[in-house]
């Protein structure tokens, strides 16, 4: 259950941010799409909307919220499960609520507001998806939004990170059917997070070479993964010299995508945004460098043994 940010702007009268701090990490989100904009069905803008922030600490975003709910760390899944029970009018004990750092009254009030909304939206961030419970938390949040559609229109949307991370997911999905963690070694896509996902491959030492395009795992990934990148040949394509460049064997400086190289960026609601280059760059784009690498690899003879002709093996 999702929608575009345009629909949020024009329709959403009830907005929840869960485990995210948009005031700092998505500074234009409030003003462009969610809180302060006047929408087609919300002519008074902020006055027509209610915003709830759910987080483990009082961030800058709490100042913009009508209601701030401070959850105990690692208890998000329990809170969502209680909300789902309350949505269905099931009994929930005050003790179960107290464990989460919230009271039954606070959670019942939230459920009443969610049901009474004309159009609700739940934005969830890394505080939900990268803490204890991980994908189960995200799945629970999506299920909560889905179940609320028995009462009103309710959608959920992840607060995607920097750059064009949504674009990578979207393109992988429409070309290979899966968003990440794809193994092409058999010539067709196989998807298995935990087995074919980047960090698992690196930590297990399954890869013997890595190409990094427009990312800096040397400054973001766990230590065992970084150590494997350092041990094996790593090639980096990036407009800047990064921490990963310093542990790699080859670094290609490329034109910054969207500034000096054309392309398409995807907004967090998966709306494609074509970008024309505004500035010239002396460097090739990522695409041009990759095409040259592919052409050079194709010119080389295959490394694999030729099929056996049927005669005796020496």
């Amino acid at each position, binding site marked *: 259950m999702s929608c575009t940010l345009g629909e949020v702007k024009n329709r959403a009268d009830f907005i929840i941010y869960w485990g995210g701090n948009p005031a700092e990490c998505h500074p234009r989100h409030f003003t462009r799409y969610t809180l302060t904009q006047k929408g087609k069905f919300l002519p008074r803008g902020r006055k027509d909307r209610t915003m709830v922030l759910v987080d483990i600490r009082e961030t800058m975003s709490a100042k913009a919220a009508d209601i701030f709910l401070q959850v105990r760390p690692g208890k998000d899944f329990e809170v969502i499960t209680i909300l789902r029970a309350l949505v269905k009018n099931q009994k929930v004990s005050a003790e179960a609520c107290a464990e989460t750092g919230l009271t039954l009254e606070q959670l019942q009030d939230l459920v009443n507001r969610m049901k009474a909304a004309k159009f609700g939206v739940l934005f969830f961030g890394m505080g939900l998806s990268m803490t204890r419970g991980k994908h189960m938390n995200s799945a629970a949040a999506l299920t909560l939004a889905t179940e609320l559609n028995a009462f009103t229109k309710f959608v959920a949307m992840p607060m995607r990170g920097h750059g064009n991370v949504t674009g990578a997911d979207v393109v992988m999905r429409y070309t290979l059917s899966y968003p990440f963690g794809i193994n092409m070694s058999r010539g067709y896509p196989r998807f298995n997070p935990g087995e074919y996902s980047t960090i698992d491959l690196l930590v297990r030492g399954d890869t013997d070479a890595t190409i990094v395009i427009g990312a800096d795992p040397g400054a*973001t990934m766990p230590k065992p993964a970084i150590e494997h990148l350092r041990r094996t040949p790593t090639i980096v394509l990036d407009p800047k010299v*990064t921490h990963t460049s310093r542990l790699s064997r080859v670094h290609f400086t490329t034109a910054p995508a969207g500034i000096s190289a054309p392309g398409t960026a995807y907004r967090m609601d998966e709306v494609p945004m074509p970008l024309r280059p505004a500035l010239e760059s002396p460097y090739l784009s990522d695409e041009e460098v990759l095409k040259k690498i592919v052409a050079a690899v194709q010119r080389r003879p295959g490394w694999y043994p030729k099929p056996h002709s049927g005669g005796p093996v020496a």
Partner: protein
Amino acid sequence: MRFLLMPIRSNKQGVQINVGKDGADYNAVVNTMQAHPDDLKELGAASGATIRVRTDVGEATFQVVEAKVSRGMLFVPYGPPTCQLYGGDTDGTGMPTSKGWEVEVEVVSREPQASAKEPQ
């Protein structure tokens, strides 16, 4: 003393990523932890002191400053120092647990360091 460490994202960190990760500002941002004032008192450290944070995987040193956070918790923007602290187990999801680690903290220097950044 044991704490729960929560790596986070911040506005200054996001800006400095684009300015350049070799800059003093970026390094100050990703090396400055936030803690509750009472926790600092218990540690016997002043705001801006240097602490060593240790997990089963590795260790790193940070400056720690007072901030409006819950007791028993430390917050720091993601960066090269936090990479030293977490392992690669993804629980089959493809994503390592990057928040909520239990860490052991010891004070390296009790006096404030000039490079510590004020909390945002």
